[in-house]
């Protein structure tokens, strides 16, 4: 999606609290993929895990690391994962459901295309 729309929309990833740490709800599927981390105990630890995530998943958009007290995650109710689209005026025009079930990239894409269309219609 970033490849398709990255020229007109800024994609920002926000790295939040681990959803399935080894000291919480550990997932075997994560273990099989070699993704096994305890919940980071400091901002530096979280940044280190985020860096590994960025490299393994080849994330090309800016990966922002949330404050260790999860301030931005709570501001946006972003955990465990969630999608938003904010228009040029700074307003929320799409708020995805909470992940995992509510995390639907297709909905975000729909909002991106129609937001772009709205900009054209309104001019």
């Amino acid at each position, binding site marked *: *999606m970033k490849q398709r729309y990255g020229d007109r*929309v*800024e994609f*920002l990833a*926000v790295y939040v*609290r681990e959803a399935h*740490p080894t000291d*919480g*709800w*550990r*997932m*075997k*599927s994560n273990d099989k993929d070699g*993704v096994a*981390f305890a*919940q980071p105990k400091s901002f530096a630890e979280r940044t280190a*895990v*985020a*860096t590994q*995530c*960025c490299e393994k998943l080849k994330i090309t958009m*800016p*990966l*922002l690391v949330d*404050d260790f007290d*999860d*301030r*931005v*995650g*709570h*501001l*946006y*109710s*972003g*955990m*465990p*994962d*969630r999608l*938003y*689209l*904010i*228009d*040029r005026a*700074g307003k*929320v*025009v*799409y*708020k995805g459901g*909470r992940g*995992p*079930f*509510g995390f639907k990239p*297709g*909905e*975000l894409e*729909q909002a991106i*295309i129609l937001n772009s*269309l*709205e900009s*054209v219609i309104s001019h």
Partner: protein
Amino acid sequence: MKHVTQRCAAVCGLLVWFSQPLPAQPLPAQPLPAQPLPAQPTKSTPATDDWNRMLLAIMRNDLSGNAGWFGPSETRYTWAWVQEHLDPAKRGAVSAQNSGLPPASFDRLDRDGDGRWTAADFDWSEKGPLAQKTSMARMFLMRADQDRNGKLSQDEWNTVFERLSKGTSDLDLEELRKLLFPAPPPRPKGPPPDMPSTTTLLQGLYRGELGSPFPGPRLGDFAPDFTLPTHDGKTKINLRSFRGHKPVALIFGSFT
């Protein structure tokens, strides 16, 4: 009885959790967001309903997505919005020509591939017709996706064909039906082997790993401002800097 005893023990053990306040949220350095951020969910906080639903889902061992706080999404760009702007005569469909979009973009939103936008293309619920077809496609993909990359390669397609055709060069109608709509695998009895305990789930709820108790901004609100560093520490990005320039897509998540 064992389950009831275990759950009672889990609840009793979690009295400590109930009595502790949620992690204190430091006041943001920038101006407060449009919606005040309470220190804890209260009766007047919309998050309380979400929270209670998730708590009940955990106590009922229901993480299917049908219970709990998982959706639906909210969007400005509903089918009603599309009709208001592109189908004022209420014909029930929007053609590519009427959309004013290039074909590639139009096609992305023509989810059922019928060459028009209709209400069905904007129905993201789990009960809509597209959701059921997607579910069938997902089952096919799960059986065919050998390298588990979430995509079907031509080799994987050929492997499925060869397995079902048993060396012959074509499939009849019945074999094709079995190929496209395989029977679901038998469900093992009892809870899934990966199912965490109620205690683990409740800990995840209170630690913010299952989700945040706060509701987040509402549709139409100004997005709360923030400044965060990139993972490599080379720069800091401020959300408000994009206002007036570009829309911003925010993707929240973690490695696990």
